[in-house]
């Protein structure tokens, strides 16, 4: 078993936290894991990407080869397209449709979404809306973890455990809110044609 994930987003959106939750869950289930991140200048509102590799055999490269990723998980629609070359033909593109328009030449959103629809397997959801409905506007990234959870090689309960762990320091209320967002994302993705 080998499951490679490209984690995409814009600096500050929490793509690294998402990656870290999935990585910890996979490790606790006995998988080998490597997670490659970018720090420094790219964190300043620029495009960020993390490579997360999960396997039942030791992993050599920290970087995923082109065409090998099982999933692109993106916090933002435009960024989900940036790393398309990494996705395998039967790979799944899971993305938020909620745009981060911090550049002057952000393309027409309709066109961006149409490009995503052209990919063979995709799940799109408005993570912002879903998060707001659960009453926790800031946890769009946990909504995306929920959406992705259907395809990941780890159990949903394990992911829940690590979401709780990650937010434990911030108190029970924060934990509950993020778990709620996770479940809402999971539910929202259930109706999607990508499944």
């Amino acid at each position: 078993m080998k499951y490679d994930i490209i984690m995409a987003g814009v600096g500050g959106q929490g793509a690294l936290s998402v990656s870290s939750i999935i990585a910890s869950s996979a490790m606790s289930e006995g998988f080998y894991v490597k997670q490659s991140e970018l720090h420094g200048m790219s964190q300043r509102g620029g495009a960020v990407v993390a490579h997360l590799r999960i396997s039942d055999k030791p992993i050599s490269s920290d970087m995923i080869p082109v065409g090998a990723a099982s999933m692109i998980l993106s916090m933002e629609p435009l960024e989900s397209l940036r790393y398309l070359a990494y996705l395998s033909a039967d790979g799944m593109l899971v993305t938020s449709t909620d745009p981060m328009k911090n550049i002057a030449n952000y393309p027409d959103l309709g066109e961006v979404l149409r490009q995503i629809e052209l990919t063979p397997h995709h799940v799109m959801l408005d993570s912002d809306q879903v998060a707001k409905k659960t009453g926790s506007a800031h946890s769009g990234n946990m909504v995306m973890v929920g959406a992705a959870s259907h395809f990941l090689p780890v159990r949903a309960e394990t992911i829940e455990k690590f979401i709780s762990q990650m937010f434990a320091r911030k108190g029970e209320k924060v934990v509950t809110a993020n778990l709620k967002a996770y479940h809402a994302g999971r539910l929202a993705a259930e109706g999607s044609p990508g499944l």
Partner: protein
Amino acid sequence: MTQKVLLGDEAVALGAIDAGIHAAYAYPGTPSTEILEYLLAHKQKHNKPFAAWCANEKTSYEEALGVSFAGRRAMVSMKHVGLNVAADPFINSALVTINGGLVVVSADDPGMHSSQNEQDSRYYADFAHIVCLEPANQQEAYEMTREAFDVSERFHIPVMVRIVTRLAHSRSVVNVSEPRAESPLSRADSPASWILLPVNARRQWHKLLETQKDLLDYSERSAYNSLRLSKDNNELGVITTGIAKNYYLENLSELDSEPSHLHIGVYPLPVEKIRKLVSHVKRVLILEEGYPYLERYLRGIIEPAVRIQGKLSGEVPREGELTPDNIRNALDLPPHRGLELSGFALPNRPPRLCTGCPHADSFHAIKGAVDANESVFMASDIGCYSLGALPPYSAIETCVCMGASIGMAKGASDAGLRPAIATIGDSTFLHSGVTALMDCIAADTDMTVIILDNETVGMTGGQPTILPDSRLESVVLGLGAKPEHVYVLSAHPKQNERNAEIIHQEINYNGLSVIITVRECLETLRRKKRDKQAEPAGSELVAV
């Protein structure tokens, strides 16, 4: 044996802790920052080792050297270009008879994710005639850092651990072994070997050259330099160094027959092992991250009988990082294909100043201070404010190395290019701008220095500035700047107009002015608030 999930940087830090270091020093710089951050966090919990941010890489190195003189183990970590700053003590320290283990970690940034160049620190280790250890993964980062201290004490030399961004910032499980206790205080027994007066230095240099054969012997025997000769493949031999091994292994299963393989993790280069491999094959492919260091060593100037392939011959890319994909051509494997966008132009999303960043206000004020048709020279420096180069600001013209802006503005002014303005961050100013300012003060150069004081080291994640910011003004005045041309302004949107007026007036003054524009970095401010709210139970939902 315990298991931990660690970044490459953290594995290095824990390796040093378990090697019983007494102290660690650093100046923040991507991709090395997390090494000292881990040590600082450890110190907070366990009250040791001593760990501190320093003014710059040179002072960091010198402080570590003092610990070594006192018989205790010390580590100093920096990014590759930081080693340029520390080069003076680093190269000279190879001549002293190292007492407590001294390890210098240099984190290279091939691909320039967050740097000005791609330089390869292995050349520095070679230049200094010391041992360099180059881990291929997080586990080796931990083990090799531990070993580096033993090697340092065994041969009485500083030892380099060279890592690269892709290892520094990649996380994996590390098996941790029993920690070693700290060494007791014990002054170096022969102070003469630490006094590099020519008479001593010549003796020390002779000794270092004599040691080279022992270092080579150590390298030849090291298990980190592993040679596997293939019985049924006399055609191709692959030599990998550091993390390049991983990219080779990633592709290995697709090769028809497994080539002979030498992996190098320890320098000086294991000459015998290289010879053994080369005599076994017709063609050698060299995969190394960074410069074609090994390739040049092998290639020499005379074409060898064995064909050497690598960065110099063009089979392996000379620029940027190696990847599992860009070495496939060299292995005669076809390129991988992924999904493609057709006819849709993807705009770039460059990094940018945060909305509301005080630097933006400083740049607005500066632009407002300059007459529209006036030609101004705007030197700048390294930090978040380097992003002032990009639209919508397009406010700066230089970014060369830490602290260069003040010296460059002086040079431009000396040459007659005026008005000359230098912008520099608070931490960068203390790192190495302050010495250039002394030159400007001595000459009363016609120029304006603007210190953009956001009260933190912003770009690397908000480490504290080495001197509290309130002291910047007294530092500048203490150096002898004229008080009537030193200003402290608030970098606030409401003040932009007034600030522009003052900057305008000082640009027109025919001598040196120093203006400090102050407002705390939004990220640092936000984090402080968040930390306060997190204790006790958090009341507000915050996405991490």
